[in-house]
């Protein structure tokens, strides 16, 4: 950081859009499935054909309230839908049905930690609206393209917009907040939050102000950040850009800038000659929603334990280090897998080590997510039991796990089929020990001369001869005994 960096305080607020995991769209029965052929999940309603009318999907409301509860929001007793009017080719009705002044959820907060320090970001509101279609630009991007192709498959997918308070003070905080938000929404089961598929999107408002000031500087809106990393990078770039402008005596323009990930910079977007005016008004086609307390409580009852609480419980109940707890709880499915395994194999730290080490490595290598771990928790517990009993060694255990991932077979079957049991037969090992001593006179002499660490080499030779199946503890004992006889 430059010396002057401390002279400015960065103020960041985020606007996050998350698509909800309903089966049907918000106003019609079309599928919300991602990746289908263009313009096939479309009907007269989501295409905005003349004469069509919207009917609200109840689950979209419930997921919005669920998201609000997971983010610690108050749930409004009365909520309504408004039309936000603007023209864009991906917007079938030239208005987006959204919520202007009476959103479902307000006043929440998210707490998270960076390096042991706790941060809190206020949630201003969570509201429900409809997704637009998707534009495919000819050429490389929107600039300089000759024409655009529109696919309305996404049009009408329910979408929540989450607006934070301007409580974030650094680009890193912004990224970590967003990661935590993603975890919470995934726990709540309301969105799959895939930034690469666009089901989670983030725009940021960033401004700088002299440290100690309570006024806000002119804010710049950053769009087109397509990954958690790019959110941090874009904000870092923009923070330095604004700092340079301010320090050279300039004025930061209130504007919208586009993040160019390849070039690693933000670019001003063309400003329109007149200010947009969305002409919000209550949608006459959609009656308001009254949210009774019982309904809220029923939705609250469906909420699972949220990541922060679970993290704390993992530390308290299983005695895990904070680091382990935070890794294991980033995904609900991983945490569920962990707990189910511990229920069958009651060594929490051992299970944690295997999951954080081997299971995550194998998931990564096979391009899977914790949602589709190919083995059952009790299968992992069985494997760990075999290791614990000494039927197989830890290293063989790792190979067995890999095979379990590939074939889905049980650990015991793999060990049996491939003859991987440790050699714990004293007589059989005694013969091999004798061979090793005979074949390695030099090291034997060194050992007898007092250099006792050489025994490790000799154990290694035993392991080599048995292709790793010798019980190393037993091999060590037998070697020591045989060498003692020689001295």
């Amino acid at each position, binding site marked *: 950081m430059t010396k002057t960096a401390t002279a400015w305080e960065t103020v960041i607020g985020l606007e996050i859009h998350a698509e909800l995991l309903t089966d049907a769209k918000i106003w019609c029965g079309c599928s919300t499935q991602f990746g289908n052929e263009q313009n096939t999940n479309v009907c007269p309603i989501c295409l905005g054909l003349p004469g069509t009318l919207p009917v*609200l999907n109840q689950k979209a409301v419930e997921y919005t309230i669920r998201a609000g509860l997971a983010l610690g929001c108050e749930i409004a007793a009365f909520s309504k839908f408004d039309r936000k009017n603007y023209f864009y080719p991906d917007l079938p009705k030239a208005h987006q049905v959204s919520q202007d002044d009476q959103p479902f959820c307000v006043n929440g907060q998210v707490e998270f930690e960076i390096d042991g320090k706790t941060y809190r970001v206020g949630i201003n509101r969570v509201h429900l609206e409809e997704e637009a279609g998707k534009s495919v630009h000819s050429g490389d991007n929107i600039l300089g393209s000759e024409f655009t192709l529109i696919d309305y498959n996404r049009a009408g997918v329910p979408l929540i917009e989450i607006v934070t308070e301007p409580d974030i003070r650094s680009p890193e905080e912004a990224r970590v907040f967003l990661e935590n938000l993603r975890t919470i929404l995934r726990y709540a089961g309301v969105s799959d939050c895939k930034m690469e598929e666009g089901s989670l999107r983030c725009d940021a408002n960033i401004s700088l102000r002299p440290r100690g000031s309570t006024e806000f500087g002119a804010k710049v809106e950053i769009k087109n950040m397509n990954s958690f990393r790019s959110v941090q990078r874009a904000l870092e770039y923009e923070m330095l850009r604004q700092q340079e402008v301010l320090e050279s005596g300039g004025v930061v323009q209130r504007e919208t800038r586009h993040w160019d990930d390849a070039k690693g910079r933000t670019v001003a977007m063309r400003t329109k000659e*007149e200010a947009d005016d969305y002409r919000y008004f209550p949608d006459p086609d959609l*009656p308001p929603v009254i949210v009774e307390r019982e309904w809220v409580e029923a939705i609250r009852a469906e909420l699972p334990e949220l990541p922060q609480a679970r993290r704390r419980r993992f530390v308290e109940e299983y005695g895990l280090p904070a680091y382990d707890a935070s890794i294991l709880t980033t995904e609900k499915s991983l945490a569920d897998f962990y707990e189910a395994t511990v229920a069958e194999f009651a060594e929490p730290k051992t299970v944690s080590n295997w999951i954080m080490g081997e299971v995550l490595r194998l998931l990564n290598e096979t391009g899977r997510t914790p949602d589709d771990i190919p083995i059952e928790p009790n299968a992992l517990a069985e494997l760990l039991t075999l290791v614990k009993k000494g039927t197989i060694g830890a290293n063989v255990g790792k190979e067995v796990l890999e095979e379990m991932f590939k074939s889905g077979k049980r650990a015991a079957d793999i060990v049996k089929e491939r003859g991987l049991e440790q050699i714990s037969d004293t007589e059989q090992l005694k013969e091999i020990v004798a061979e090793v001593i005979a074949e390695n006179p030099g090291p034997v002499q060194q050992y007898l001369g007092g250099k006792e660490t050489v025994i490790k080499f000799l154990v290694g030779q035993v392991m080599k001869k048995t292709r790793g199946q010798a019980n190393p503890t037993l091999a060590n004992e037998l070697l020591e005994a045989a060498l003692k006889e020689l001295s």
Partner: protein
Amino acid sequence: MSRISKEELAQVIYLAHIHVAEEEQEQLHRDLERLLDSASKVQEVDTTGVEPMYRPIPLHNVMRPDENRPSLAQEKVLQNAPEVQDGFFRVPRILD
């Protein structure tokens, strides 16, 4: 008295996305003034404490279950489109 300035007229034309030829603007301006004369009569009413009535029959919580229904065949989706390409709606470039 003018209710709508030239700038406001320009903004309204811009937002409504309707091209109005230069020579038509004056007549349009006059028409809108007259319509606004009538529209602005609502402002003479004392509505202190009156709740707005956005819809004639008060309903609430009109919702449907989260169930899929068949979509249209792609050819039906596109049948009225002025320009299509490869199953997409095609439009001129978005930015100049």
